[in-house]
């Protein structure tokens, strides 16, 4: 396996087993992903891309996925989903006397600098990685890379990892830090 023996096989199995359904989900949202290419380390053409635009330019598939799903969100009846932009999650809220159950998010509204809470039944973190966290996380865990540039924007700072860690989540490979493999 390409993960050099470190991949969680159950997660890999889930990714592979669910990929066809994920593709159908995106196609149902209006995306055309019928163009297959082969990328590094692949044994065959298996990465789905969008066909080029009529003028021949490659389409930005990540942008188009977000755009298509946003349109789907916008088509739902009003009041069902609230999207808050320009808000920064500061803390995951744990329900008192629940054994650690997460039931909300405290966030800073960056428009008026006020702090609010969004309460609910569950929280899903989709906050990205820490490729641009040069000052802290990379310095600690991949110091040999600090001289390298990054392809990531400045927002990739591992904020969600900190949020999760503060409520007891387990960032994996903590015992591998001293070996400091990277790839």
């Amino acid at each position, binding site marked *: 396996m*390409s993960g050099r023996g470190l*991949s*969680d096989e*159950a997660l890999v199995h*889930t*990714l592979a087993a669910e990929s066809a359904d*994920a593709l159908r989900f995106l196609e149902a949202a209006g995306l055309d992903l019928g163009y297959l290419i082969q990328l*590094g*380390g*692949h044994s065959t053409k298996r*990465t*789905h891309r969008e066909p*080029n635009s009529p003028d*021949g*330019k490659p389409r*930005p*598939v*990540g*942008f188009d*996925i977000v755009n298509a799903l946003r349109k789907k969100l916008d088509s739902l009846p009003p009041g069902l*989903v609230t999207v808050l932009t*320009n*808000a*920064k*999650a500061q803390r995951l809220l744990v329900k008192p006397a629940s054994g650690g159950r*997460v*039931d909300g998010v405290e966030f800073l509204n*960056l428009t008026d600098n006020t702090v609010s809470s*969004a309460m609910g*039944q*569950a*929280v*899903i*973190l*989709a*906050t*990205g*990685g*820490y490729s641009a966290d040069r000052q*802290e996380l990379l310095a*600690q*865990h991949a110091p040999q890379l600090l001289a390298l*540039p990054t*392809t990531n*924007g*400045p*927002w*990739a700072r591992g*904020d*969600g990892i900190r949020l*999760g860690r503060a409520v*007891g989540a*387990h*960032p*994996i*490979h*903590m015992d591998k830090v001293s*070996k400091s*493999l990277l*790839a």
Partner: protein
Amino acid sequence: MIILCFKPSVIPLQSPSLLPHLLPFLSSQVQVHPTAFVDPADVDGQVKFLAPEALRGLGGVLLNARGQRFVDELAPRDTVTGAIFKHAPLSEALPETVDMTDQAQVHTTAPRSAEAYLVLDEKAVAGFGPNFDFYFKVKHFFQKVEGPSGVAEAINARRQRRSLSPLASGAQVFAALAMKRGKTGAAATDPAAAVPADEAEALYVAAITPAIHYTMGGLQIRPDAAVLRAADSADEKPRAIAGLYAAGEVSGGLHGANRLGGNSLLECVVFGRIAARSAIRNHVPKSAEEQAHEAARRRILGDDIALLVEENNDDGEDAGPEDEGIGGEEKVVVEGKSPEAGEEAEAVDDKPTPAPTRDHSEL
């Protein structure tokens, strides 16, 4: 449901006081993309444009400062990165004691900077399509030259601008291109044996360098996207944190030590959907009618995901909806920025149909 979005441009710095407590727990699995463009106008810039893997997939050749080909351009990313550090260091050579057959050693003792050269012929450029003009005519990452000797001159000129000695020769570049094209015998080694067209052909050369691209480590999740709690002892079975799920780059464990191209967007969609299903299944109170309906649906359709979630949801703590504190049907989704989705998401807010300024066709 509430979706909370960061606006990438205005995320403030984290409180530094918290960091010492968090640092020991993070994974060190960081993916370096082998090919980010070195902008001739800003060679030392910290943020680089990705040179899409498709440029290599379409026949791009990687050369070192001598004009030698040193790696299979379509090998996995970490292999290509290691080869660039080994064969194309910009200033310092690796210590003699490093075992070059051990990728981990090559990586951890990598030179602090490296620069290799990506060469395309007209066929590769045509295959990539009109967007090549962005890299060539807008950003000037590529220089158009004539034949292998033109490539060597371009490489040497770039090194001389960095006060480094010129090392490349047209003969070396010729041999490298011939090797990539599968030529053998005299045609592979002797420029004099080349048909004139080989020397006159238009070639495009750009400088590239490895760049930090993706962090494989993160919060450990189960196949149902539930975030696992840090164990108090090594023997303790990992338990889920009730009510908390993660999807995408913030999670860890899927990619191990090397992520394959294409698997980032895929994991966002696959585990994003699973997280939503798990959250609804485990935490949104169901009516008796809904419960009966769901049971029937699973029985009839054999919904693998539902079963998968059920099988993996055996820790007790987060099994099923809770009885207390049922407060409506609202769920909270925090959608921050995966690095790849960041620009796109921002663009959704501000510009409904922007012309992409970067190639986001491959992530």
